[in-house]
């Protein structure tokens, strides 16, 4: 007790991170779960979990199953011969869903793709609304948005056949665009301009107009699976596009496709960056994971603030939240090393030397550079870490009476983690 009071006095974090519940999907999971309401604008929150065996689960915030939808029941829509060409283990894998009210009935629909090439729209009671068959596997989460400003929702998704598809809310094709390379990346939509951007396996980020016209393209050195993110990096009302590539680089572009900055890590960047203004300078900081085992924090100019090294790849997106609700933000990242890390979002300043002492003592006669340089720098600082039951493939935030972090491991477990005092 005295220790905790002291910790509070010196600004140290108190309490611990605990697992609340675990859900076992009994099948592998490749894509992160998402949290959404089953009513338009509703406060009810459900967790949607896609699995490798083709089942999409809707869970209550307590981890109980609300319903499940088995996409394999649509086997008759795909020929046996076609399925023989699929990798058996993932032949029915389903994507993370997009959840929104498609048909203006106040209830949300759940739209997700499948390795079989089928896109499913499922009602809030788990009954099938419609299906659409793409030319090949769908590996990227679809997006529900009003792309053409007609007041109705459309569904946008890319597929491994290299096409970007736009469907109306009844599942009919409005237009498609050949991107020339398989797409495994979720598209990003900018509602003000109607601009769509999506990455391809050939490493190209393409921008598409609301009518399906190619606007511009930007080439990186390798595959793009990380969802691009629209963000106003300079807080001047101008959007930038932030995305990572398998060429190890996180890129910031303007909306015309011109490079603003690039930050090169030492490993592939597989998932989206997230942004938040953690140091209250009115500019967002950028956080992302890399297969060089690090979680990175960059400033809005693309310079590193800190990095934190885990023991294996960080292939999922970090999330920024105030998990202990003490008014300070934390960065939560999951690693293939089986651990969940909760880090100080601002990092921790550490002195590299003692100004005026170390410089004189250690570098007598040539201390000019040292004396004029920064006396230290920010480093990633771990607050808590938690061992999970497998390699972490996705994290999701569930906000309610308390902040929950949902950890998704490749072996099919979803665990809810909370902060307790």
């Amino acid at each position, binding site marked *: 007790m005295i220790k905790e009071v002291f910790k509070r006095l010196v600004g140290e974090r108190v309490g611990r991170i605990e697992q609340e519940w675990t859900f076992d999907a009994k099948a592998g999971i490749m894509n992160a779960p998402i949290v959404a309401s089953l009513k338009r604008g509703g406060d009810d929150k459900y967790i949607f979990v896609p699995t490798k065996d083709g089942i999409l689960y809707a869970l209550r915030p307590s981890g109980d199953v609300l319903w499940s939808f088995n996409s394999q029941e649509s086997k008759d829509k795909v*020929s*046996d011969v*076609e399925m*023989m*060409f699929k990798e*058996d283990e993932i032949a029915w894998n389903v994507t993370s869903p997009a959840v929104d009210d498609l048909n203006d009935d106040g209830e949300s629909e759940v739209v997700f793709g499948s390795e079989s090439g089928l896109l499913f729209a499922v009602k809030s009671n788990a009954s099938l609304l419609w299906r659409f068959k793409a030319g090949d596997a769908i590996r990227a989460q679809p997006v529900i948005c009003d792309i053409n400003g007609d007041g109705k929702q459309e569904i946008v998704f890319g597929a*491994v*056949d290299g096409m970007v598809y736009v469907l109306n809310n009844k599942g009919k094709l409005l237009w498609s665009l050949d991107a020339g390379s*398989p797409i495994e990346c979720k598209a990003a939509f900018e509602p003000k301009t109607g601009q769509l951007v999506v990455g391809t396996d050939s490493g190209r980020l393409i921008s598409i107009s609301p009518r399906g016209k190619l606007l511009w393209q930007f080439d990186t050195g390798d595959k793009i699976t990380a969802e691009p993110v629209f963000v106003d990096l300079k807080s001047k009302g101008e959007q930038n596009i932030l995305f990572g590539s398998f060429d190890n680089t996180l890129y910031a572009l303007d909306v015309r496709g011109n490079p603003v900055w690039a930050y090169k890590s030492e490993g592939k960047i597989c998932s989206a960056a997230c942004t938040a203004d953690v140091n209250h300078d009115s500019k967002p900081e950028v956080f992302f994971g890399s297969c060089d085992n690090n979680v990175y924090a960059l400033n809005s100019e693309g310079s590193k603030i800190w990095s934190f090294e885990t023991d294996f790849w960080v292939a999922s997106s970090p999330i920024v939240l105030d998990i202990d609700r003490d008014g300070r933000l934390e960065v939560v990242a999951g690693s293939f090393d089986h651990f969940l890390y909760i880090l100080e979002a601002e990092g921790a300043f550490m002195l590299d030397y003692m100004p005026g002492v170390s410089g004189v003592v250690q570098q007598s006669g040539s201390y000019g550079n040292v004396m004029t340089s920064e006396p230290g720098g920010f480093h990633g600082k771990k607050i808590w870490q938690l061992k999970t039951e497998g390699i972490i493939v996705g994290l999701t935030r569930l906000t309610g009476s308390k902040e929950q972090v949902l950890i998704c491991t490749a072996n099919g477990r979803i665990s809810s983690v909370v902060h307790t005092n």
Partner: protein
Amino acid sequence: MEEKLISSKNDIKRIRTYIEGLDEQIQGGVPENSITLICGSSGSMKSSVSFNIAYHEVLKGKKALYISLEQSWYSLLNHMTNLDFNLSKINLVVISDLSEFNQKIQKVKSGKGGAFVITDIGAIRKEIKAVKISPSSDWLNVVKNVVKKMKQASGCDILIIDSLSALYVLSNFTHPRTELFYIFEFLRDLDLTCFLVSETPRDGSRYGEFGVEDFLVDGVIRLQLVERQRKVTREISVVKMRATACNVDVFSLEFENGKFKALYGGQPALI
């Protein structure tokens, strides 16, 4: 497959090669559930040696799957008939149409005793040519699915893939060592004894297309055509066999009266 440690060498079960004079040199045969490369140049009887093993095991009640990637099933069977294999003695099932796959496998399942299943991928390719298959479709997946589904549905003890070289052509390997590692691990997990036919150059400079196959497999049986004074003889040697005390000498390989024989002294004296 659950990997287990053995407590004695007698715990290792073996599959005979049915080559007289060779099995004795390798403790009775190749270890069960191992992967063996049968490599050689064209005409060295790789397919026949592989077929011979599977044929005799099927006669003993086992189930064998022979995946032919290039040679048609009727060409293969005509060749084997010409070599005096009595095909009427075995339950022979030919799959040359993927849409009949499940039905044929059920036939194997319901039949008693052994079965020799030949999957003619060449014929399937010809049939599929007219059907629109998605761009990401991979023939390697077809091969893997055929093996896995047969194993699950009706059991499979012996697998022969003829040939690895043809599989490479069908599946565009970008990182061969990594991809081969995963293929071999897939085969190991299925708990069956695999013979992979590999075409090699006549000079025998390597055992597989990518030069890494011999490191990844458990055993290598090498077949050679050797020309001496305008006379060509076939030779066989066991280059490597894990968990086996093997004689790595080169033997002459002869086929007479429907039987393979490995003979010492087939090579003339050096001087």
